[in-house]
């Protein structure tokens, strides 16, 4: 069966293991992991960015997290949790934990780098004008941090969506199913279809992020008319830290 035929086969578009369902499950796990990551990383990032406390430690931990092999961690967590966690959760929890560990560093660094990169002059001015700490954070630093924060969330999301495929290794549904099953069944079309669906999903999310960025980041911070030459090394490095991860 060719790749095209695989896609055209109506059987692959319906049912509990059809494409729409698998995309839905995939997005569900991704969304849960992203939400948890945001819940954890954004407040922590704000705290670090605002107080400057623990930046070194967090940067180190973030880098170490990046080095943690997803597969090993997933399997270890499964073995550790399987005696204590009942039912379906024994597959879901390790998956979500692994995805969260993966997603936290970019969001965290994006948030605190964004807050620290907020124009110090503007922050000073706000303080001098009589903005309270909370007001400075809310009205000046956070809006200014948005571009970097968003780019952190963007790379986290792409990482989550791409890595959520490993959930299939623990028997969970999602787009990883097509890839793993396709391989186990020697069905190349199914596997390639899984990869294509995933790349398409990532592309759509990427475009969605660009759109969201345009919507919620102030045009004052989107210097689209300026040439990209004005990148100083420090911000470039920060940007890499975010995009790559």
């Amino acid at each position, binding site marked *: 069966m060719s790749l095209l035929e695989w896609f055209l086969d109506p059987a692959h578009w319906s049912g509990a293991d059809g494409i729409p369902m698998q995309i839905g499950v995939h997005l569900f796990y991704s969304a849960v992991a992203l939400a948890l990551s945001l819940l954890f990383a954004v407040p922590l990032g704000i705290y670090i960015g605002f107080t400057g406390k623990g930046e070194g430690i967090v940067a180190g931990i973030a880098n170490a997290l990046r080095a943690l092999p997803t597969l090993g961690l997933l399997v270890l967590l499964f073995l550790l949790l399987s005696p204590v966690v009942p039912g379906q959760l024994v597959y879901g929890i390790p998956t979500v934990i692994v995805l969260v560990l993966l997603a936290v560093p970019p969001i965290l660094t994006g948030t605190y780098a964004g807050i620290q990169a907020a124009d110090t*002059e503007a922050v000073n*001015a706000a303080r001098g004008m*009589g903005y309270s700490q909370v007001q400075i954070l809310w009205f000046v630093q956070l809006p200014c941090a948005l571009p970097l924060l968003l780019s952190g969330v963007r790379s986290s999301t792409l990482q989550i969506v791409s890595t959520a495929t490993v959930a299939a290794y623990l028997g969970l549904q999602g787009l990883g199913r097509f890839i793993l099953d396709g391989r186990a069944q020697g069905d190349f079309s199914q596997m390639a279809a899984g990869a294509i669906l995933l790349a398409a999903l990532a592309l759509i999310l990427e475009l969605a992020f660009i759109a969201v960025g345009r919507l919620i980041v102030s045009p*004052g911070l989107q210097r689209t008319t*300026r040439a990209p030459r004005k990148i100083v090394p420090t911000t470039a490095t920060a940007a890499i830290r975010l995009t790559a991860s």
Partner: protein
Amino acid sequence: MIFFDAVSKMYPDGTVAVDNLSLNAPNGKLTVLVGPSGCGKTTSMRMINRLIAPSSGTISLDGVDTQSMNAVQLRRKIGYVIQNAGLFPHRTIVDNVAALPRLLGGSRKQTRMHAMELLEHVGLDSSFASRYPWQLSGGQQQRVGVARALATDPPYLLMDEPFSAVDPIVRAQLQDEFLRLQADISKTIVLVTHDVDEALKLGDQVAVLRTGGTLAQVASPADLLAHPTDAFVADFVGSARGYRALGFVNTDDSIPVTPEQTVTLGQHTSTIGRTPSRWILAVNAVNQPVGWVDVELIAGDIISASDLNLSGTVTSAAGSVRDLLNSALASPSSRAVMIDSAGALRGTVTLHDIVSAIGQAKEARPNS
């Protein structure tokens, strides 16, 4: 009135930034804190709105100790302008100006309208209102900074090197505009600068601080130039202080203004009569001086723009003796060109007359 009473600031590492400063910044006046870097001028200023806490001593606003006030409430009474304006990059110009009034509960419409007025007041076209800070030049941003500081109409204004980040031409322009604005609004202002010329130009009162955070002298600009209290202040105001002091002496009737023979551009050389010297002043159709002409070197039969020597300057009748002297020195004819408020020629003053007028004035004031 902002009053410093024996204020000191010592940092935990033992550095003394400000040492026992007592100073009064009177209401409606502009007090300049000036001094070399490390003299504690910025620290002193930032203690007023409690961005920095004094180690000892008190600062009071119209008799109320600032320590007794809530820091945020205190700051809202005091406008604040800083070096690079510190505009909020994510807000449009008009929203930058309207930011604090909005925060204090003003309606969107009201605060924006007021902001537009203020922008006009600081000389910014309304077309700038919807732009973002990065789309403005440094000078324009600084104007917005001033407008924003005035948005809640605070009685006090603190200005931290407000004009230092722009080029000299724009700086002079901003200074002039700001003096006009202050004449209008009469805020109680403390301004920090490292530029002694700016201090002398803007200040009603200038406080010179020396390294180590002690106050060297507080005086009016003229006094400071005429009577520096010690070698440090004398050195700081500069060796050109004798000449600078003339900037605070107004021209008066004691200086004789003589009518000047003029020519106009396009005039035929044959119509020029006898001239008292080689140099003759050219004016335009409304009698505004445009340059000097060397009668011996006119290239053709007609006086054209290429015949003009443009090195001279003009001085207003209301200007200082320094401006007058400068005009005479700059002019190829050694005559200062004086104009009226419309820019039309009033006459010229010879260098000799200016110098003798200065000499007579000094004799009349034996202290100088």
